[in-house]
């Protein structure tokens, strides 16, 4: 079938280049010659935060910047101070009233008289990490009163999208499936089955109904990729098998495993209990969007190569199967070794 032929023609290059996850964060360099001060706030509980405040020392003198929290913030532990060769570090735990730090202002008194900056990094329980640079022209930081539902939805959606696009193991499985399906209708069924399956396990794992240990799970996910290699060779050789006749069933079965893998990505965000259903929905939508973008990209590329009338020699048509199989085998062995090492 021509679609399958076109898939075979392009896959060895696609493997290396079709996934454009294209988000890399590059931190900006500090322009001043003086090192910035640094404030780190890690949320420990709803109203409790660990605060690390570092001020640089220049020529033996500490920069005269004073960290000032609003009156509603009180120390739970007294500041513990450490003198480092280049800076002074204070660590303490603070507690706030009911709303936490939301809507409050933290000031850096004396910053305006310097030419240095303050790097502020806030890590909240819901997984949000915000990094801000405070300049002498505006020596304070205002914490947003509340995160809008739209902003929260965006965080979970983008996280799901990135999770699948940066998860080459999940993508490689979907990629392998594309070689096995032999019609558009079967492609729709197979991708839908994968989606339904991983949605089920993503939900039950995130809601805490089922827990699967990570190490065996990772090995099984790798095994699912390895499983597809020989099946692609069978398709190429004109043979048939249960997987080739009913790829959607195999896709559903292995999709259950991959869903547990997605759940690890979602729970790593540190979900507040009240947000779980909403976060689950948005994360899953992000995963689906990423998956569809990947499949769409491949189908578009196939169409593009068809327009250009590129044909690979038959000897190269099996390369994709070997790439899928070899990577699957490598990860399987690697993850089993990690698992055995973890048990030892």
């Amino acid at each position: 079938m021509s679609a399958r032929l076109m898939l075979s023609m392009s896959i060895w290059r696609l493997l290396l280049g079709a996934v454009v996850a294209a988000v890399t964060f590059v931190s900006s360099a500090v322009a001043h010659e003086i090192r910035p001060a640094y404030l780190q706030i890690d949320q420990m509980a709803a109203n409790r935060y660990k605060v690390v405040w570092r001020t640089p020392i220049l020529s033996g003198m500490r920069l005269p910047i004073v960290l000032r929290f609003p009156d509603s913030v009180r120390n739970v532990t007294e500041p513990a101070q450490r003198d480092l060769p280049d800076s002074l570090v204070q660590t303490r735990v603070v507690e706030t009233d009911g709303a936490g730090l939301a809507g409050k202002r933290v000031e850096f008194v004396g910053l305006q008289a310097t030419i240095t900056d303050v790097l502020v990094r806030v890590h909240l329980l819901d997984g949000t990490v915000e990094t801000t640079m405070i300049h002498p022209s505006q020596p304070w930081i205002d914490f947003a009163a509340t995160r809008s539902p739209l902003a929260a939805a965006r965080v979970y959606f983008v996280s799901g999208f990135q999770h699948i696009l940066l998860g080459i193991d999940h993508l490689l499985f979907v990629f392998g499936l594309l070689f096995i399906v032999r019609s558009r209708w079967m492609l729709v069924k197979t991708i839908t089955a994968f989606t339904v399956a991983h949605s089920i396990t993503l939900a039950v794992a995130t809601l805490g109904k089922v827990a699967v240990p990570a190490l065996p799970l990772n090995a099984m996910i790798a095994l699912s990729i390895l499983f597809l290699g020989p099946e692609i060779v069978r398709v190429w050789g004109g043979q048939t098998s249960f997987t080739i006749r009913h790829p959607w069933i195999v896709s559903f079965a292995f999709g259950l495993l991959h869903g547990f893998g997605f759940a690890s990505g979602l729970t790593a965000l540190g979900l507040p209990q009240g947000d779980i259903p909403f976060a689950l929905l948005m994360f899953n939508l992000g995963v689906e969007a990423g998956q569809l973008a990947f499949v769409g990209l491949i189908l578009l590329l196939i169409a593009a190569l068809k327009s250009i009338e590129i044909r690979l020699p038959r000897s190269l048509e099996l390369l994709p199967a070997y790439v899928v199989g070899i990577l699957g085998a490598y990860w399987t062995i690697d993850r089993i070794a990690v698992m055995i090492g973890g048990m030892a």
Partner: protein
Amino acid sequence: MPVEASAHLVNTGLGPIYDGVAHFAMSPEAILPIVALGIFAGLRGPIHARASVLILPVGWVAFGLVGMLVGPLALNSVIESLPLLILGALAAADIRMPSWGTGSLALLLGAFEGWSFGSAYSASRDGLPALAGSAGLVFVLIAFVSAAVLKARWDWTRIAMRVVGSWTAASGMLLLGWGLR
């Protein structure tokens, strides 16, 4: 989310490939000439498109490897503006050329940009997978652009493509002017 997302890549060992993809995706000075070449090849027909799609990534990888070994060349911005200027002008003018000419242009572009890309990784151990990742994206980009132009059936779409070529050439002229300043 970067921490969580990178866990996959740490597990799979494919992180540097993504680095190469991201590096290329954020390099407009490398993307624009490829777009111009794709437009030119697409306007000329499927044989030209095929030549550029097959030759450009090969040239990119081959000279990227050389760049990794030799390191960066001391080129001024006048020379760096030439791919934009030449390929943009060719696309804008829709000049007739034999297919081997288009293939040679693809090889030259792959050599120039691939060397530049590879040399950025001359001191890195992750250069090879990054180069492979970028070459994959180069392949996808040139295939998409040239196929889209080939599919353009109406005169106005061909004119629009040539306009894009003229803008690319204009960017090259700006860069050239900057370099000659």
